[in-house]
């Protein structure tokens, strides 16, 4: 025992040896690093460092044909490093000329103190913005005498510019990062600093990460006269900014501009997509505004004005407006009724015109129409009966289960939910849950109670985007791609998969073809509700809607696509309080189709009437 412990005692030597060896290795390494290597000692005592953030150029935005929609313009931010500035301000011998400085910037002394305090609070040692987006004139004046104001320097940055002033809501805007956004970022990526710009809406928001690029950094040595003496450590600490990606949108800027012109003087929305891709071709909301208003130093002022406007120009009605779809919804009701086997194209229902119960018919046509006649004439009783036949279908074992099936199908068709692609602030619309009716009617309800749904009235609400998607689905004979704004990135990186994934709601293509042929007769049939807008060379399909609403006259609705074979464009038009679907929405949709497919329009009178037409609204100033 004794001996073994002696042997073990010697083990202390190895342990101590390891401790000492590591100590020696460290001291040698430190000697090499600190004394031998001169590489790290370039910093002269009196020099200060300036960290100049290198803002990357934000990605540009093009339309589907490569036309420029958004580009950048240079602006100048006046930055301050409080520590360096305060040294001069406290200097009594050769003081900081606050009066001249304020005069040059066109601010008063209080504002100067406020700005300085804000910067100090942010960081005493690191630069903070003192004044952002200084005008070019002020910039020129101050830059000349900047050497007299140590701690201050200019940082170049870019703001957005919109050459065409169209598609304001789609393109969105950027603005100084808010406190909330900053706090959220601090917990995650920690990329932004106070004064940085961030996408606030539209694609500027959804593609913020791609568009913004990655900030760079330049470390400059600055002498006591506020002059930059060159880069610190031969730029070893510098970081090149990475430019943002360019984005190509599915938008057709000519079609967009045309749509915006057609919508002048009306409230509502036009949404057009390319059915074969789901790319949005036109995304019109009216009234709109010039996107250049929300740029530069007056952004806040303009924003407040737009916000106060009773016509709500900031609202993107294409995704945030929820409307009763009216008769355009008969497409949905018809498709689900056929798919569930509740009706066939040969099924006829009785219609007594105005005398029909419980829903009267607003169109005069012979009784009893089959499916094709019903869709052409937009027969209310027919689709009420189809709806009733669906939810009463014995195969579901009960009305409530039947309703659940119907509700689930509308969800699959893209209603009552968001697509969540790349359009911020989408709204869900409304297809009520069956529990909603249970609660409302104490569990006692049936197909008659909720009959309004069959003709797209009552609780059902859709956004123009959702409605447009229904048109695309019928155009494609049964499937759709979630509607989205982007076409591709400038560097050809893949766009998110959700936008390129085909969605099949499970409606047999043969039923959709029946529907498609029905919608063709709306233009081509002798009694078609849009027959006046038929074009000989472009076979159009569509469905009118005239929706009752609590805000006054009927909403004029229309969904359409064309040509019938391999459709190039599908769209939805909603004109608030425009009256009949065939009065405003159908001709506007037809003109959009013609413009997109032909590239020009031949119906000049119609075009003129639509563009110059004004609808008077209660809120109008």
């Amino acid at each position: 025992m004794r001996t073994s412990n002696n042997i073990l005692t010697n083990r202390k030597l190895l342990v101590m040896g390891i401790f000492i060896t590591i100590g020696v290795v460290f001291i040698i390494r430190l000697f090499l690093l600190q004394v031998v290597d001169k590489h790290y000692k370039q910093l002269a005592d009196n020099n200060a460092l300036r960290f100049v953030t290198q803002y990357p150029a934000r990605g540009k935005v093009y339309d589907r044909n490569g036309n420029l929609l958004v580009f950048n313009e240079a602006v100048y931010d006046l930055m301050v490093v409080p520590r360096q500035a305060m040294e001069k301000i406290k200097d009594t011998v050769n003081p900081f000329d606050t009066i001249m400085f304020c005069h040059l910037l066109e601010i008063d002394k209080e504002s100067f103190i406020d700005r300085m305090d804000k910067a100090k609070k942010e960081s005493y040692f690191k630069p903070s913005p003192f004044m952002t987006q200084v005008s070019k004139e002020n910039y020129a004046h101050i830059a000349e005498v900047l050497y007299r104001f140590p701690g201050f320097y200019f940082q170049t940055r870019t703001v957005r510019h919109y050459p065409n002033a169209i598609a304001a809501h789609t393109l969105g805007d950027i603005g100084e990062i808010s406190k909330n956004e900053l706090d959220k970022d601090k917990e995650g990526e920690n990329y932004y600093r106070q004064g940085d710009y961030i996408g606030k809406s539209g694609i500027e928001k959804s593609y913020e990460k791609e568009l913004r690029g990655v900030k760079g950094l330049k470390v400059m040595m600055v002498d006591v006269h506020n002059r930059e003496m060159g880069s610190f450590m031969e730029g070893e600490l510098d970081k090149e900014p990475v430019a943002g990606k360019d984005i190509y949108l599915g938008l057709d800027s000519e079609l967009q501009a045309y749509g915006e012109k057609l919508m002048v003087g009306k409230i509502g929305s036009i949404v057009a997509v390319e059915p074969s891709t789901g790319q949005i071709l036109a995304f019109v909301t009216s009234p709109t505004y010039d996107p250049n208003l929300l740029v530069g130093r007056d952004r806040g002022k303009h924003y407040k004005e737009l916000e106060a406007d009773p016509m709500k120009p900031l609202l993107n009605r294409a995704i945030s407006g929820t409307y009763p779809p009216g008769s355009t919804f008969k497409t949905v009701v018809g498709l689900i009724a056929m798919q569930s086997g509740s009706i066939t194209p040969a099924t006829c229902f009785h219609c007594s015109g105005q005398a029909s119960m419980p829903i009267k018919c607003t169109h005069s046509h012979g009784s009893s129409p089959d499916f094709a006649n019903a869709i052409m004439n937009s027969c209310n009783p027919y689709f009420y009966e189809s709806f009733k036949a669906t939810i009463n279908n014995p195969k579901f074992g009960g009305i409530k289960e039947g309703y659940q099936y119907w509700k689930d199908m509308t969800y699959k068709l893209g209603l009552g939910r968001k697509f969540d692609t790349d359009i911020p602030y989408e709204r869900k619309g409304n297809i009520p849950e069956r529990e909603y009716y249970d609660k409302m009617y104490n569990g006692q309800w049936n197909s008659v109670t909720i009959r309004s749904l069959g003709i797209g009235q009552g609780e059902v609400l859709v956004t123009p985007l959702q409605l447009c998607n229904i048109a695309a689905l019928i155009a494609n004979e049964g499937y759709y791609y979630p509607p989205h704004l982007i076409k591709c990135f400038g560097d050809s990186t893949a766009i998110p998969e959700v936008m390129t994934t085909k969605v099949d709601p499970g409606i047999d293509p043969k039923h959709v073809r029946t529907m498609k042929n029905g919608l063709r007769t709306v233009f081509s049939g002798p009694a078609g509700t849009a027959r006046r807008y038929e074009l000989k060379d472009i076979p159009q399909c569509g469905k009118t809607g005239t929706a009752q609403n609590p805000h006054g006259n009927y909403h004029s609705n229309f969904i359409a696509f064309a040509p019938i074979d391999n459709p190039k464009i599908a769209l939805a038009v909603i004109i608030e309080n425009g009256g009949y679907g065939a009065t405003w929405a159908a001709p506007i949709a037809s003109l959009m189709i013609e413009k997109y497919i032909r590239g020009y329009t031949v119906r000049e009178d119609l075009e003129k009437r639509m563009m110059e037409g004004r609808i008077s609204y209660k809120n109008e100033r």
Partner: protein
Amino acid sequence: MNERNSIIGKIDWLTILIYFALVIIGWFSIFSAKYDEMHPSIFDLSQVYGKQLIWIGASLLIGFVILLVDAKFFNAFSLWIYFFFLASLFVVLVYGKATKGATSWIDLGAGVKFQPSEFAKMGTALALAGYLGRLDVDLQKRKNQIIAALIVLAPMALVLLQNDTGSAIVFVSFIFVLYREGFPGTGLVMVGGILAILLFVLTLVWSQTIMYIILGSLLVVFLTYYLITKKKGLVKMLAVFACMFVFVFSVDYAFNKVLQEHQRNRILVLLGQLDDPQGVGYNVHQSKIAIGSGGFSGKGFLQGTQTKYDFVPEQHTDFIFCTVGEEGGFMGTAIVVLLYVALLVRIIVLAERQRSTFSRVYGYSIAGILFVHVAINIGMTIGLVPVIGIPLPFLSYGGSSMLAFTMMLAIFVKQDANRLNIL
């Protein structure tokens, strides 16, 4: 003689002196690292340097109380203390707050956070000392070996589950005390460990193929040697080579599948395989510049620019050594390194003069813990070790680590002062 009077004469003042030197250097470094002209007083309690003073005060108070407690208390209650901290590690796993990916804090409210893993090391040292100090425990017996290993591995596993790899690595330090106490195979593990690190690094630097060629050629040389000389041990030698081949073979897998991405990148940066001074290598690069710019005598107290301008992240916690290097220069860093080496050697010397196994094992344990902390922390700031976030004992800002290290050391000083009372 009254025990309370005698303690002053018996405690090891050299240890205490080194302790105070390190604590004061740490406090001033934190002040300098986080210096703010708006709050120029080192006593300003709203700033981290003021807060550190509170922690130092609290640590001194607890350390003083420990010196007054009966020395036998820690041996008697070692297991209870151990289980208490083991339980608190469990609590952290369930209720803890995540900081930088690791869940190692419990929020005690009022801005006070408690990191049990800092104390668990001390608890483990006490429990191991208590266990090996028992007369019926013999490390040559299989059962005793297993229990001793479990005492160390249980808290280590819990800390690993918190995703706090740095703190878990510290538990490796118990290899020193087990080696000293004659745990069979520990010497081999130490040598094997060094060999494994060497193979790991070389494989990453040179690629597997080259390593196979090198190992293969070595194998041929050895085989010829053994076959010609007809010495014994051929099988053992072949087994060792087989292990090395398997190890090299699995390096790629381990590196890519077991390690997390940030850990992989830190290793690649260290090995010079990944050159990214702005990204992953940023901390180390900045820290080397800060230390390197200090020169021989440093820029002087509060004159550091690298640390002042927030170049170095975590400069008051894990990278506090940068401030020492920048403002104190080589003089400062060498003094700090020497202070640590002196403290470690002193603890070993004191441990060896103990009569009780408990005190000796405890001494070796804390020497090991302090050593691993110092070696990893300083090694990382000067680019010799991958970035692993553990504090520098007595210097880094942080209440839990200051309290834990002080208590750890105070218990040992108390044991040492009491050594002559043990028969």
